């Protein structure tokens, strides 16, 4: 009798715990607000935490979310990402921020990731987002550099004068596409 009760409580406890973890919701809405883009099927939800994947992603401020292990970028980049989050109407997934490790360019501590002046916007974590819209949003939100790379878009708050290919001021931005 005792063991039967114990087993029943354990199973109910397991079920409750599972349901709580799976729900992964904030108790207050995302401060970015509701600007969902239902056309792309990327509608955001005010109570979703870390794109419904709390194990892989962290979202300490309830805005865009970093991949697990990624240190936060600098204040200027974070302000730009908050703006992009709102502009794109999604919970933006960030795969690179303030980390200063190889194979990033670690030689210049005044620019890029080592200076907290860059962020990487993962393709995989933002499935459904169109590159053109990401670059347009970056331009609207004050980034000076945006470029599509292998598996992510790279945004920076500065341009590299030696290589103008990512200079966002030269990007012909048609935000309707």
């Amino acid at each position: 009798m005792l063991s039967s009760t114990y087993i029943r409580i354990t199973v109910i406890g397991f079920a409750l715990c599972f349901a709580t973890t799976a729900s992964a919701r904030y108790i207050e809405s995302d401060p970015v607000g509701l600007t969902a883009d239902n056309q792309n099927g990327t509608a955001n939800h005010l109570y979703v935490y870390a794109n419904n994947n709390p194990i892989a992603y962290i979202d300490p401020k309830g805005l865009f979310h970093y991949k697990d292990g990624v240190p936060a970028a600098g204040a200027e980049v974070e302000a730009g990402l908050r703006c992009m989050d709102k502009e794109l109407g999604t919970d933006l997934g960030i795969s690179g921020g303030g980390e200063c490790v190889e194979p990033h360019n670690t030689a210049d501590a005044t620019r890029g990731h080592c200076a907290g002046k860059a962020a990487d916007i993962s393709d995989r974590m933002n499935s459904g987002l169109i590159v053109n819209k990401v670059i347009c949003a970056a331009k609207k939100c004050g980034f000076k550099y945006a470029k599509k790379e292998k598996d992510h878009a790279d945004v920076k708050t500065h341009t590299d004068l030696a290589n103008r290919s990512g200079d966002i001021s030269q990007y012909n931005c048609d935000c309707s596409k």
Partner: protein
Amino acid sequence: MKKLFVIIAVLFYSAAHAQSAEVSAAKPTLNEINIEAIINQKYPSCKILSPTDLNEGLQSYLIKSLGHQTPGIVPTDLTGDGIKDYAVLLRCKNKKAPNRVTEKFAILVGKGNNKYDWNFIAKWEDKLSLDNLYLTLIEPSTLKDVNDGKEVQLTNAGVELNLFEAAARVYYFENGKIKFVQVSD
């Protein structure tokens, strides 16, 4: 109640079985077993990075998108002397702190008769790097550096060191020296 336990047990067994099937498919070839033995002999606390060391997102990306499952080793002739070289990502245990892991990127330049010159290039201890680093082979081609825009012609194969969804460098040999091109940052 018993039925519920049986169902849960079957689900856990299926998940574990599926995982082990994926891992077994990632076993290295005979050449890699040989180089693994050489590495073990020289650095017993180190092993070649395996797919299960990586986060699930990257595991899935490597299997589905790139179609290969050996993220920790690239066997190829990097120097162009006709002898196979190895680029490896090694996971090394810290003897004094068993819970700490260091990852190292090394290029073993083949000298023939199973002799290698070891070139350690970088090491990491942070979580992001430990979960997200992998290697890929780059065939001889023209590459462009994202930082300065300069083009580099690879006459031999190179090896790409990737930080998943964040950065990548291609390492190559030129006049006997190891150089790199920043292809993503």
